């Protein structure tokens, strides 16, 4: 499979990365080189094989459903570009 210019623009939008017109062609070439490289996987017979979900044979660790951390609003927002009263500020999204 290979991607065309329109698909590159669509993926870029899905990934929320602005791509200029000049960037589309080089990106298309690079993505297609990677897709051509992974195409060899089509030769593998995977019938009846379970997809891996955990690389180590272990049960997911569980803990009591209790609050173990919190009350640190300032720490959470400390690195944000724009905040007010420990809230993240974003451009207006609702008219």
């Amino acid at each position: 499979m290979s991607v065309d210019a329109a698909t590159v623009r669509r993926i870029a939008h899905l990934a929320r990365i602005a791509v200029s017109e000049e960037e589309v062609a080089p990106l298309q070439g690079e993505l297609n080189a990677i897709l051509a490289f992974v195409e060899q996987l089509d030769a593998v017979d995977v019938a009846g094989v379970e997809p891996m979900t955990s690389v180590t044979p272990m049960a997911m660790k569980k803990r009591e459903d209790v609050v173990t951390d919190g009350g640190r609003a300032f720490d959470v927002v400390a690195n944000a570009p724009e905040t007010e009263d420990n809230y993240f500020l974003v451009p207006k999204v609702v008219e």
Partner: protein
Amino acid sequence: MTELNQLTLAEARDALRSRTTSARELTQAHLDAMAKARVLNAYLLETPERALAMADVSDSKIAAGDARPLEGLPLGIKDLFCTHGVTTTAGSKILEGFEPHYESAVSANLWRDGAVMLGKLNLDEFAMGSSNETSAYGDVVSPWRRAGSDARIVPGGSSGGSAAAVAAHLCLGATATDTGGSIRQPAAFTGTVGIKPTYGRISRWGTVAFASSLDQAGPIARTVRDCAILLGSMAGPDARDTTCVDLPVPNFEAAISRGVKDLTIGIPKEYRVDGMPPEIQKLWDQGAEWLKAAGASIREISLPHTRYALPAYYIVAPAEASSNLARYDGVRYGLRVPGKDIAGMYENTRAAGFGREVKRRIMIGTYVLSAGYYDAYYVRAQKIRTLIKRDFEAAYAEGVDAILTPATPSSAFGIGEKASADPVEMYLNDVFTVTVNMAGLPGIAVPAGLDAQGLPLGLQLIGRPFDEETLFATAQVIEDAAGRTALPKPWWA
């Protein structure tokens, strides 16, 4: 007396315990060496004040007879580990100026054991790269040069700053991370030792995520013993990472003297790839001879799905990366670039903040996870991952204790030499290391000699899950037989 930064970590520990030197003197010797070596660009941030304050605490602990396991030993920290109040960038512009309000589990364990932080080490952006040329803060230059040449050589990646700093004696050891080879490949390129432990041995909490099912931290140091000491402190259970196992940490340092008598070492025939330089084949044969001479038996084995590991990795790793890196949105951290609306702000921020390789991988990941392609790419790759793991399980079930391979398909290359338009050329560097991440196994790279150009070459040992001890024992036999690689003369100082 030897200059203090020339000591191994174990020698420095003994010198501190016998009061032959102080933590302050040891730390200052490293800070002085770092100041002279800035042309290597190994450190993104030097933290001399913090280092000396930590060293003074260590000196008083030693004086009081309360020395902890790593008391007073100066280390470098890959800038992928969050450090409280100390800028952490992941080598990316998008995290410029990010000051975590928490400490990663790995670095916290090191400080708990008395280690001293010298600074934060350069890396490929978000650990995506094999040459340290994708860092937003400039290439790392290897302390190594080809014989008779002053061309700049890459230290490997993504832990290129860690490997270069260890090889140039700018720290006694360093933290690193390995998603597809990022500890073992730079260790091999710089004549240092690096171990990626079993997935789950070390907590990932507080380490900037790249591909969560593959990422694992580990140490780079100048000897097998030093790596064993550091891994002992970095590892251990952590309730905050649900994939970190609740297993006791063995005494890794004690394991290095076990030897290889009666061990069976597997030689996988599929690693004899087309176009492998004869020097690499020779080194591999030599490694097997050394282990045989020390009492191991050598057996050819087959890992039939080896060739599919790298392409499957280039589906799984970008898929996980595209999800993990969604958090860099201009809202919660660092960089924000305005746009016409909120989506425009996200798109402009991510376009300005991420470098080319990171964008490329996010886009591949987004594509293989998108509607209509998920089964064809992602699910198929995860099935192939199961097959890769089964290959190893079959070898171990037949009595193989560890597997010997070359660490890399070549020695280090020059900066800019692999800058072609085809990203796959760079990816092929990880062809021998990536299988280990796909199967979650431990792997160690140990220096084994120099090539005709005078650059280091390494061998890799792959172990059973949670059997790092056998890797240390086996790597020590190779280190003893090969002799420790003489590190380069400091042309930079």
